[in-house]
């Protein structure tokens, strides 16, 4: 045997060089990137045709992606790499600008460009009257290009490039409407939390670099088995932090719902169907690392379970249509994390849930946009009701999304969520019960709050705002064809995607994620399916019974749990108390010491009172003598440290 298998469980990862049409895979990224550049730099000249260029570039990428996908099917090991050029070629710092096209990347390419194209198309209608439409499409194309780079890179540095790129594009899209302070604040929050996650990713990359000497997937995956288990755990936790930041998972979930402050459901959709799945991609891509350490997997599963319940509970108490969908996104990605954390065959399950979720969540976000479009940008579901008569297509397509997400057979959610619940129950030991029950409970809660959303929006009595209240009179109407056609396409996807993908996609992904594994759940498979269906129907029925007659127009006094859920289960307050406040104190202290010098610290109050005329004469913050004293004290400390360190060694 020539190639020594270092990791006995997994086969050595080998990627073939790209040939023929596949060697043009860089065009996938280049097309939207160039289009973004043109849109952002062309200026007003491009205002009239700019958005169509944006749509066309994504369509071109999609077609190319589809062609490459068929090419890939014919290859034996179904993965090709292409090294474009040597990015950082010095010494042991060797990073190539390389791309990898394999089954996993192909799935994501098709999802990103396919759903991306539909969103683009929809946005031409939704943004028709916005003066910043060209710029919006520029950011949009930038986002697509960065996301494609993220999934196509053949090493972690390329992934990081795309990672930062989608972060930037997302930040720009969230803050797109400058006028709104809430949008700017949300943008800041998203940036902050993502930075925390990004730091984790960066650390993970540097750790790999330190211990494995490379960040290439090939090298990392083939050698991860040589590392000690603590080392693997550290790398994995660092990557997980990155994944949690980007995917809005506990404890970094707070930014995602706020990001829905963005201008339109269109950009909100980015944060629902595509970008936030980057964390799932990262873990699935790194499956050789995560499979190496069971503690690590337990952490991932716990994060998934906590987040899915958190999202469900908070989603139940929200009244803003976009926020409910946002928290449902948080919760659904929790399912995906649960899947990738379980490992083995569940990796592929998480991916098919991700793909199916891309369809039905996109469908519902665009549906919500359509509703808002017809209702003067109203987002409060307490002020909807009875809309099914006025927007038939939106209603029907939204219904498909609703049935899909709560998991009614034969719609897609049933085929993709169900196996994750089964896989959770199959986890050995008592944790199988714990995580399985969490997933099951989540399914019931999901049915409850999604039904509440659906009923309050489309059925029951009209609760629209009126001119008599001093608000706007509503004249709901169906949206134009350019918006409804994507809705119909996505609704079709929501219906059939699950059934089509449930066996084919795991097979297709086998070279990357390993073969399917036989499940041995704690409860018989059939009984489990029946149980989850009963819970789903019960949750939906309860919501129907409670809300079919409408709801109060203002928040009602509520018990502890509901109040807590309305306040995002106090996670924001926690963040504030643990991170923000100490940070502020530290900053204030540093500013004081820096401005006043050590002098100021020593003299304290006396200087403040007795400064007198001297204070008036100074123009800047500090006296030069205070600075000098700071330097002297610093110097003494440095001297002392040098001596102490050396003495410590000698002694």
């Amino acid at each position, binding site marked *: 045997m020539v190639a020594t298998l270092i990791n006995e469980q997994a086969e050595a990862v080998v990627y073939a060089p790209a040939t023929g049409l596949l060697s043009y895979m860089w065009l996938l990224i280049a097309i939207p990137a160039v289009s973004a550049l043109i849109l952002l730099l062309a200026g007003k000249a491009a205002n009239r045709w700019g958005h169509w260029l944006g749509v066309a570039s994504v369509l071109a990428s999609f077609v190319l992606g589809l062609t490459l996908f068929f090419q890939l099917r014919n290859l034996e090991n179904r993965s090709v790499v292409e090294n474009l050029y040597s990015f*950082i*070629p*010095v010494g042991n710092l060797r990073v190539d600008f390389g791309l990898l096209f394999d089954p996993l990347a192909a799935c994501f390419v098709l999802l990103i460009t396919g759903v991306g194209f539909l969103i683009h198309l929809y946005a031409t209608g939704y943004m028709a009257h916005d003066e910043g439409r060209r710029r919006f499409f520029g950011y949009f194309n930038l986002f697509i290009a960065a996301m494609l780079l993220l999934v196509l890179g053949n090493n972690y540095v390329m992934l990081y*490039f795309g990672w930062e790129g989608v972060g930037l594009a997302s930040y720009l899209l969230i803050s797109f409407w400058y006028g709104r302070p809430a949008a700017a604040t949300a943008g800041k929050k998203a940036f902050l939390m993502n930075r925390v996650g990004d730091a984790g990713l960066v650390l993970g990359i540097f750790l790999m670099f*330190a211990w494995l000497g490379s960040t290439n997937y090939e090298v990392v995956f083939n050698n991860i088995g040589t590392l000690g288990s603590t080392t693997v755990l550290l790398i994995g936790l660092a990557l997980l932090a990155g994944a949690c930041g980007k995917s809005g998972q506990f404890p970094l979930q707070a930014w995602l719902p706020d990001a829905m402050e963005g201008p339109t459901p269109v950009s909100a959709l980015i944060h629902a169907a595509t970008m936030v799945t980057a964390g799932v991609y990262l873990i699935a891509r790194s499956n050789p690392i995560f499979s190496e350490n069971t503690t690590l997997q337990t952490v991932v599963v716990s994060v998934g379970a906590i987040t899915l319940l958190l999202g469900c509970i908070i989603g139940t108490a929200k009244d803003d249509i976009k926020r409910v969908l946002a928290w449902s996104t948080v919760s659904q990605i929790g399912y995906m994390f649960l899947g990738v954390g379980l490992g083995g065959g569940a990796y592929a399950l998480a991916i098919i849930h991700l793909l199916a979720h891309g369809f039905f969540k996109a469908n519902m976000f665009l549906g919500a946009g359509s509703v808002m479009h017809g209702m003067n940008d109203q987002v409060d579901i307490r002020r909807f009701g009875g809309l099914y008569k006025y927007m038939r297509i939106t209603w029907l397509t939204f219904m498909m999304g609703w049935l899909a997400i709560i998991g009614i057979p034969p719609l897609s959610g049933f085929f993709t969520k169900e196996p994750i619940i089964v896989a959770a129950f199959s986890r050995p030991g008592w944790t199988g019960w714990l995580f399985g029950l969490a997933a099951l409970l989540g399914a019931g809660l999901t049915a409850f709050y999604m039904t509440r959303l659906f009923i309050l929006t489309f059925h029951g009595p009209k609760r629209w705002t009126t001119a008599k209240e001093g608000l706007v009179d509503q004249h709901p109407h169906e949206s134009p064809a350019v918006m409804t056609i994507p809705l119909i396409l996505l609704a079709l996807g929501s219906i059939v995607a699950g059934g089509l993908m449930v066996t084919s996609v795991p097979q297709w992904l086998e070279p990357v994620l390993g073969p399917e594994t036989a499940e041995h759940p704690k409860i018989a498979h059939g009984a489990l399916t029946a149980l989850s269906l009963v819970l789903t129907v019960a949750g939906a029925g309860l919501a129907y019974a409670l809300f079919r007659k409408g709801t109060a127009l203002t928040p009602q006094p509520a018990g502890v749990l509901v109040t807590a859920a309305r306040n995002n289960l106090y996670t924001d307050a926690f963040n504030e108390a643990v991170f923000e406040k100490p940070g502020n104190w530290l900053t204030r202290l540093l*500013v004081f010491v820096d401005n006043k010098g050590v002098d100021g610290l020593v003299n304290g109050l006396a200087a403040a009172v007795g400064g007198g005329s001297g204070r008036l004469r100074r123009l800047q913050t500090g006296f030069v003598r205070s600075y*000098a004293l*700071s*330097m002297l004290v610093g110097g003494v400390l440095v*001297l002392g440290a040098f001596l102490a360190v050396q003495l410590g060694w000698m002694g």
Partner: protein
Amino acid sequence: MGDTISFPHLDYAALWPMLILFGAACVGVLVEAFVPKAWRNTVQLVLSLLAMGAALVMVIKRAAAGVTAANAHTASDAISIDKAGLFLQGALLVLGIVSLLLIGERTLETGGPFVAQAAITVGSEADRRQAARESGATEVYPLALFALAGMLLFVTANDLLVMFVALEVFSLPLYLLCALARRKRLLSQEAAVKYFLLGAFASAFFLFGVAMVYGFANAVDFNSIHANISTSDKPFALLLIGLAMLAIGLLFKVAAVPFHVWTPDVYQGAPTPVTAFMAACTKAAAFGGLARVLYVGFDRSNWNFTPVLGVIAVLTMLVGAVLAVTQTDLKRLLAYSSVANAGYLLVGVLGGGAAGLSSMLFYLVAYGFAIIAAFALLTLVRDADGEATHLSRWAGLGRRSPFFASVFTFLLLAFAGLPLTSGFTAKFAVFGAAIGGGQTWLVLFGVLSSIILAFPYLRVIVMMWLSEPGDTTPSVSIPGALTSAALMVGVLVTLLLGVAPSSLLDLANNAASFVR
């Protein structure tokens, strides 16, 4: 008694760059005396640019001829023109040329950024007259040349005395240049005096350090110091204190915490082109000197300075980043960011070995270009009172001048270390070197501080793009040819080093060796 003095051999090929600059500076002094006032600025500018260009050519010729251990030392081993020294000289000259373009700009306001007569009382009638009409002092060119030549000598100095003299030679003109702002002259003069006094204080530390080291090793040249460290019978504490004091003197110049206190005041008060010059070139020179002291004179053969300098690096990164968050003036913000960047550079230096050195060299060039471009942009945003550097004044600039706001946004993203900018590659290089050198804890803090440091940049971006422009939002002046050139070069290099950094990385890697 012997009647002959044996003159040391001087390798003129190695000394040309410095000789050219010193010579041009002296000619510049004569130009002040003999060329009519109307012509002076043009003559000085052309002379300085030619001199720097010629010096650069000499550096390149020397590099092309090849540097070996045999031909590196000259002038009684007082200087060592080795590969790293040549790289630094080249970098200093290139960055110097770009900053000189800013210094030479005369179209943004009447008479340029410098005061015509520094002796005129601030606020007097004559002062107002000169601010409005008279053309700025042209002595700034010879002073800048003196400073640059001093830096070239500083990074190649092979013994501590030469290093000290070079330190003073490049510092003194900078003190003076700081005092010559055309507007806000009190701030400028105060900055100069502060810089001067604190600089003298730091020089005293350095000099004490030299004395201590001499006491221990009985020599001031790095070669003998290195040889005598292990054989000397003097108390070891003497050497430690000596090195600590040398380090303090140098850490002052690189603006490391707690010796950074001068930075914000001086950066804010100095004329912006001079600030750009200091931020790019002084930093490069000081780090070149620091690396030489640590790598050549006191390399880690039998003892270790990394923990203490590592703590300083961590403090520098964190304090710089946290305080940058609270700044409301852009020049002060960039000053604190430059403090934090000194910390990143220190991480690279402490990475050790050729990788550490090459990452530092790369970082210096990448940062130098970006910071010059950033300050070039600051000179453009102005109102009736000169540059408008208060953050609140930049609100809504993105609406008013989208192009310049985009350029500035790009530069800020580069400072924040976003991929495809030089900021990313440079940070990647220094952190990678530190990881390679087993200093993972430094990288940990480095990543942490770069997260914090992203906020102030973000705040500026938000300010520019997400606020409505007010009545007081200043306009962006159309830059003259010189500023445009400096700005364009800075931005292009920042982009280039982010997208295709391999050639400069190769160069830095090949240059990463000192000759002892």
